């Protein structure tokens, strides 16, 4: 079984799905000849040709919008937005259309597409290359949001996303792209959307994380009898697994890279406060990015939540 980093795992998922299904096509800025600015689509133009791996003009709204049209027409487009910070011009197409076409047409037309984008800070990139605004997309019914935390899960989740009958926003931590390796089987396997994974069982405290924060969460719980949950799909999210863990540990920490206010942690916390309040032994703590404009590289390490900050929150809730 090959040991792959996340770039390679995602590349493999794309390649295998394109081999399996002729309707799977890729589009985006620099995804063809250049293989993507992170090389995620490297080699796919050569293998599948420019009809299936399309370098597009610089226009995010129509990248998303054209993906919608392709999906309507029966293709399975996987669109790349070069960085999550450049998804904002495409939000109108995603919010006004991708999410609503099934409902609008009472099922006559559907939108099985994937929009991939690297997200998150930590690679010393210029402004707007470090966004983690996944929560925005979770507020829009009709959209699914998936955030893998490792090469293995990236491959399995991406395959599921491509096969999903509804539009999926698939966010890849650019910080993780090449920093972790893992055994990733060749050939198809899927990880179901909407299900979280209990990475580590524990009894005293639950730490919920996704994407770029999972590694730090795991580091933070060293020496603690903690349960760690990798949420994987944010929308729709796995209430069951979370509530079960709340009932078990009674202490909840949610870690995310996004700013605190209205981050997805708020939804998780609110869900718990509504549905499992009586099982709580301590306040629900969120360890998040600060409520500030994302800084340029010189300050970015101070912005991203650290394992130490998660650890401190754990110590805090363990006082109860």
């Amino acid at each position, binding site marked *: 079984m090959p040991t792959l980093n996340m770039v390679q795992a995602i590349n493999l998922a794309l390649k295998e799905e394109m081999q399996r299904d002729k309707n799977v*096509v890729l589009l985006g800025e620099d995804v063809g000849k250049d293989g993507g600015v992170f090389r995620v689509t490297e080699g796919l133009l050569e293998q599948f040709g420019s*009809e*299936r791996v*399309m370098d*597009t*003009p610089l*226009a995010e*709204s*129509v990248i*998303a*919008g*054209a*993906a*919608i*049209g*392709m*999906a*309507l*027409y*029966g*293709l399975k*487009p996987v669109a790349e937005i070069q960085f999550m910070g450049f998804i904002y*011009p495409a939000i*109108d*197409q995603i919010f*006004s*259309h991708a999410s609503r*076409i*099934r*409902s*609008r*047409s*009472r*099922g*006559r*037309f*559907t939108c099985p597409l994937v929009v991939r984008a690297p997200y998150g800070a930590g690679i010393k990139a210029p402004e707007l290359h470090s966004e983690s605004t996944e929560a925005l997309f979770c507020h829009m*019914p*009709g959209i*699914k949001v998936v955030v893998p935390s490792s090469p293995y899960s990236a491959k399995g989740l991406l395959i599921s996303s491509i096969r999903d*009958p*509804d539009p999926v926003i698939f966010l890849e931590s650019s910080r993780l792209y090449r920093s972790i390796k893992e055994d990733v089987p060749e050939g198809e396997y899927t990880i179901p959307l*909407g299900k979280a994974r209990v990475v580590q069982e524990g009894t005293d405290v639950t730490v919920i994380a996704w994407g770029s924060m999972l590694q730090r969460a795991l580091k933070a719980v060293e020496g603690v009898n903690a349960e760690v949950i990798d949420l994987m799909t944010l929308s*729709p999210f796995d*209430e*069951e697994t979370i509530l079960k863990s709340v009932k078990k540990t009674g202490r909840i920490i949610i870690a995310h890279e996004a700013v605190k206010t209205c981050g997805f942690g708020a939804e998780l916390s609110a869900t718990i406060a509504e549905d499992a309040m009586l099982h709580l032994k301590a306040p629900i703590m969120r360890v998040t990015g600060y409520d500030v404009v994302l800084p340029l590289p010189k300050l970015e390490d101070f912005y991203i939540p650290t394992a130490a900050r998660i650890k401190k929150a754990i110590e805090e809730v363990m006082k109860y």
Partner: protein
Amino acid sequence: MPEKIIESYNVKRIEILDEKGNADESLMPSLSNEQIKKMYELLVHSRTFDQRALNLQREGRLGTYASILGQEASQIGSAFALEKSDWIFPSFREMGVYITMGYPLYMLFQYWSGDERGVKCPDDLNIFPVCVPVGTQIPHAIGAAMGVKYKKDKKAVVCYFGDGGTSEGDFHEGMNFAGVFKLPVVFICQNNHWAISVPLKKQTASKTLAQKAFAYGFEGIQIDGNDVFAVYKTVKEALEKAKKDNGPTFIECFTYRMSDHTTADDAIRYRSKEEVEAWKAKDPIQRLKLFMEKKGLWNANYQKDIEDKAKAAVDEAVRNEEAIEHPEPKDLFKFTYEKMTSRQIRQMKDF
């Protein structure tokens, strides 16, 4: 030659049928008498539908409605050139297109009464639902055309929008894609000279809308949009070009919105009666009638006959629509995703 002209462009305008019902034979598309009559009937039919919709709205039996009055030739003429297998991306003011394609009338009323089921397009047609956010359907047409091209299907994609729509970013990005990928798409811009209260002159400083296509490396043409022959001929040729993989065409139908923007609007606030009056003389139905009369294809009996038929069809559609049961509150939940989420299932218990 240090200051030189490196490219030149001309904007063409095509007119065939004038206000008096005279057609330029040299440009006349080949249409049988039956086809011409069919077109005329669709024009009358569409106007009958439109008037009824306005009446129903006034009586509170329909929601906000966007009238097509004055734009019938642009819509019927273009849709008449289409095949059922072509893909159509309308905006919200294309009832004449739906009707020409044979879309069930009662469903149109159903949609405008605020019921999603009205735009659940029948399986034998490919008309995308009414698109409310201006210009945003253009990227969909692009994507569908990319699909057509990829699958090498013998189909074209048609996209409708208004003069106001040309100001939106999605228009630009979509047109540019069409040029770069040489897509089998026909853009039909109904320049009805108004975007709610904003007249064309405040919408763009461009002398014509047709010339906007030059910015994307393909053909743009202006036609008299109240001239059903000019519309039909130009669209037909553009469709053939598309199906031969010879790329996109942008067609500016020069027409006029005779009615208020929608039933929620009051055009008297912002435009002069004189302007509207001047356009009445250019009515698209009247001039086809005059043409047909000269050709012996029209008389008062015929007119009465088709008006009766149109009225009967619209009456029946209204009856059918009003017999439909109110949608179930549970329907709220059923079409967001293919499968309801656990949260939705719980929420649905409220009903």
